[in-house]
């Protein structure tokens, strides 16, 4: 797979480390009534979709930035690559 890094251009996927579902950016609040159950869901449960998947990749052998990549898990086709900081900023603004 070739990942089109927003700052560095196309880079081979082997330069990156995969963390997992981008929902890991939505860390639950620790001081809520249901926080125990929320953390269980956050840490252990995954949608694990066959199809479009937003996921966190780390450019370990590059600029060490965190990226959010929209990728089809059935075809490995990559549709969108964003810096995780930008993605997080926009999270509240749109519906995705």
């Amino acid at each position: 797979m070739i990942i089109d890094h927003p700052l560095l251009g196309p880079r081979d996927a082997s330069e990156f480390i995969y963390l997992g579902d981008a929902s890991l950016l939505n860390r639950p609040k620790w001081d809520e009534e249901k926080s125990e159950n929320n953390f269980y869901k956050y840490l252990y449960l995954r949608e694990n979709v066959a199809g479009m998947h937003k996921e966190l990749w780390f450019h370990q052998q590059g600029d060490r930035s965190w990226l959010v990549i929209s990728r089809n898990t059935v075809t490995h086709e990559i549709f969108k690559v964003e810096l995780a900081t930008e993605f997080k900023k926009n999270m509240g603004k749109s519906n995705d």
Partner: protein
Amino acid sequence: MYYNVFKILKEGLNDNKGWKKTWKNPEIKKKYDVIIIGGGGHGLATAFYLAKEFKIKNIAVLEKNWIGGGNVGRNTTIIRSNYLLNENEAFYEFSLKLWETLENQINYNAMVSQRGVLNVFHSDAQRDSFVRRGNSMIINGADAELFDVDKIKSIYPFLDYDNARFPIKGGLFQKRGGSVRHDAVAWGYAHAADELGVDIIQNCEVTGFKIKSGTCIGVETNKGDILANKIGCAVAGSSSVLMSKANMNLPLESHVLQAFVSESLKPFIPGVITFGAGHFYISQSDKGGLVFGGDIDGYNSYAQRGGMDMLEDVCEGGLALMPTIGKARLLRMWGGIMDMSMDGSPIIDKTHIKGLYLNAGWCYGGFKATPASGWCFAHLLAKGDSHSLSENFQLDRFKNGYMIDEKGQGAQPNLH
């Protein structure tokens, strides 16, 4: 149809005209006692043990493609029971014992070959950890031997013992481990289950569950609705997709694992060898091809194919261990979809929906587990409570903190 040597002789003289189909293609009934979703190794084994050991009649196995087309036909065929944690080791040792008598049980030649599994180690610290693992195996009734370098040299003279970075210091050997003809496992269980009256229904994809007030009463398929008292799901890498139809999120990620076969060579690797410094394992099939594999590619995938960078990584590991294979040409490669769990251990449990049961999370260790997985899942389906060997493989163990984390990696599936 019962296979034996006299039958072979008779059919040989009769131009092989009397063979019947190994399993039938039956009409689907409206209702079954138990439906197993997934006609792979685990699903077919479950159906067989349900019929044979737990005397359940009226069972169906639903397979969306053809049986044995998933991971049971996509692995490196290794069987072993060399785990560290008691919860795993006791279970896998039970599985290895079932492998030893499998062919008589299912009346099918699965070419079970206990040719020995050797894990080499490369440092003093690794030696200590392998000794500990070996002791854990022995405590749980398995066999384990510690080999020194001279002993390994007498079996495998061609390994790179003086490798500057990863010299071989010895190995942990399990003599009863080995390999099995993987396709024959699926076909053999299908044959034996079919003989006991199990309906094996291919090209039947489950598209939904029929759930009424918290109880699963049947499935919706592309061939119509089928009712059942109990439904067991054993679909490996597709578990999350299937269970999402019952609105469940599982503690699983699906990852692709590749395997490779070289051209046929004269026999020179008598057993299974694993590299201790990287992720590489190899054996030689009875046809002569070198069968080898390594780590998962590391990202979520349902593609059943992986990337070239992992091929390079696996071959680097292979060449560091045995440079002699460098001249062999690669013949085939393929990928299977692994249901990687959050602690690297499997799930055999009921769900919060009554009548719906789950068998999943085998990571890339599912093949060797096939008989015990089938046995324990059948026990759960027949009796409603867990077999003592699988009682720790609970779905909610992540919530309760009873993880079985063999490698101590935490909730990061691509590291297990």
